């Protein structure tokens, strides 16, 4: 079948799927079925090739940063922005952007790929660049073990043709340097003074983080406080004030800078880059803020021990009311063991106002063992949210939630007319 027909048909399916309110995967599935080479044919024609971003934590926000940073440098960028990070999601996103001849008007593609699906993808389309963020204990019930996930990420590194960008401070990721097949290796890293702030899963119990500074990094995060951060890019020093919440997002900014630097090398326009970085807002649900009756309500997505720990550390502030909502649907991970690898003692002083989600009682039980008081447990999220807001309307509020719990909370917030979305 000719590219024109495939594209036309795919675009029609996409329109119908959207009218019916379906997700992005169906049109992608359709196109993949009638033309399995659809994605490869289009992406292989891009002048600057493909950047693949993978790892267990922070892909979505990092991909968003990389896109905006590249755009600041004058590139036209294609990305799978919908958060549907599978091959089919890529096909669906392409359908929206290609012209009828199946040509994509872009210089470069930035694709966020789930580690399990990335391997399948990179065999079909070798990325020019890859950025591997981390491998944290995540969704182990889906993939088995960290070592296994590392092997999936290794395949991406092996298939990358020009440059691989790795997290120097994550031992398993840094070790992937030896698996490149001709691609250059670049690192992003932390100044030694920040190592203790970002414990890896290996430092959970006992092991103190060891500096890996013997390997020079292309980009380092040197310091941060509140929303100010400083980075070193090669020999250039950058001071920025960020709109991103949370220290993990600040470190991901170093990752984004490093991959952008490996694409543009010395042609980078630093003032434009700095401005773009300062304007990046968090991706969907990753540190979003709402205003309710003049009070700020923050949503913080948590999906694994490291993310939850960093979330608790980043957002420490007295006088904020806390709610935690834990679901155990497939997308959240079914195993509740991970809650026991998070230290909740920082909440002991203020207590937790509301606990919710299908596994709300698992969460309450976890808090009991850290001597954190719990005012109320209500497994139904809509009900719990109402209760939480009405009991705390005089102070800022913060909700830590798993993925599907976050979707429910957003839906409920959208329904209430007094909510204003600010970021």
């Amino acid at each position, binding site marked *: 079948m000719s590219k024109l027909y495939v594209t036309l048909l795919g675009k029609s399916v996409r329109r119908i799927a959207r009218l019916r309110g379906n997700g992005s995967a169906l049109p992608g599935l359709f196109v993949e079925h009638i033309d399995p080479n659809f994605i490869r044919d289009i992406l292989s024609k891009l002048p600057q090739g493909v950047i693949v971003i993978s790892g267990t934590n922070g892909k979505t926000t990092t991909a968003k940063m990389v896109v905006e940073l590249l755009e600041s440098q004058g590139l036209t960028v294609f990305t799978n922005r919908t958060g549907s990070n599978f091959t089919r999601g890529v096909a669906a996103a392409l359908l929206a952007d290609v012209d009828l001849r199946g040509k994509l008007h872009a210089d470069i593609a930035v694709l966020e790929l789930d580690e399990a699906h990335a391997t399948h993808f990179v065999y079909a389309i070798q990325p020019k660049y890859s950025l591997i963020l981390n491998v944290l204990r995540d969704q182990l019930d889906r993939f088995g073990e960290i070592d296994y996930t590392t092997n999936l990420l290794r395949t991406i590194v092996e298939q990358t043709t020009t440059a691989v960008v790795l997290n120097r401070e994550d031992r398993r990721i840094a070790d992937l340097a030896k698996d490149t097949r001709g691609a250059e290796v670049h690192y992003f890293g932390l100044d030694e003074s920040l190592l203790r702030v970002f414990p890896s899963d290996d430092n959970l119990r006992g092991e103190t983080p060891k500096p890996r500074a013997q390997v020079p990094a292309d980009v380092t995060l040197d310091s941060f406080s509140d929303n100010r951060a400083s980075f070193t890019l090669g020999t250039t020093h950058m001071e920025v004030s960020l709109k991103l919440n949370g220290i993990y997002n600040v470190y991901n900014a170093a990752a984004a800078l490093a991959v952008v630097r490996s694409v543009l090398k010395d042609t980078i326009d630093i003032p434009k880059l700095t401005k773009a970085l300062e304007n990046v807002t968090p991706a969907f649900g990753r540190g979003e803020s709402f205003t309710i009756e003049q009070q700020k309500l923050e949503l913080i997505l948590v999906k694994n021990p490291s993310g939850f720990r960093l979330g608790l550390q980043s957002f420490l502030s007295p006088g904020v009311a806390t709610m935690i909502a834990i679901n155990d649907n497939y997308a959240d991970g079914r*195993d*509740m*063991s991970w809650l026991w690898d998070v230290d909740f003692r920082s909440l002991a002083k203020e207590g937790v106002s509301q606990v919710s989600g299908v596994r709300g009682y*698992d969460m309450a*039980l976890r808090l009991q*063992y850290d001597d954190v008081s719990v005012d109320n447990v209500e497994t139904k999220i809509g009900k719990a949210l109402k209760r939480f807001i009405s009991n705390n309307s005089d102070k800022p509020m913060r909700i830590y939630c798993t993925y599907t719990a976050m979707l429910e909370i957003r839906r409920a917030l959208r329904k209430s007319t007094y909510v204003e979305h600010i970021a």
Partner: protein
Amino acid sequence: MSKKEIIILQLYPRDMNIYGDFGNTLTLKQRLSWQGYEPIVVDYNPGDSFPENVDIIVGGGGQDSGQTKIQDDLLTIGNHLKELAEKNTPMLMVCGLYQMFGRFFKTADDITIEGIGLLDIETYAKSERLIGNIITTSKEFGSIIGYENHSGQTFLGKGVTALASVRIGAGNNTKDATEGARYKNVIGTYLHGSLLPKNPAIADHLIKIAVINKYGQFEGMPINDSFALHARSVASTRPR
């Protein structure tokens, strides 16, 4: 009068701590202190000298890389652990250390990895991973609720009894519906979740034995387990 001390030894917390195994240590520690005792948690990592006085021992699972790191060390303290088991020391070994407390683990490449043989069990690597929520039943502890995630399949010898029989899930293997193993006061199991917070009956069993071993009698105060009870009833309705 000062409070009565109970020493909890965590076996290899640095390398064998996957799947929230720390939850078991924390549960023992907190329940002891809520019951009026003075818990002391001691870590044992490869190369450390083994502490003289130990009242309860807990150990967890690891990735393959973690397991390789501790294997030689475990063999050097194996006899000592056996002596402690003979002296009725309560122990809880989950997943990886459960397997290594057995006689051997046979890998997919047919390599036999020697265990310490404290438990009369044998484990064989299989390609199928047994993952999901699991509910088992034991005469002594009632329903035991947790989560399993392992590809080794364990078979019990005559020297041990099963901890429980499987109601939903896989357990030791895909053949005989047994889960875990017991020898004297040593419990081995595949259940995470973590195990002890949601199964306080097992936690209190280990605590009671440790206290009686050391002080002759147990005078614990009751604990409010309503969150645990609710969490158990929710967990038993969730898909595998």
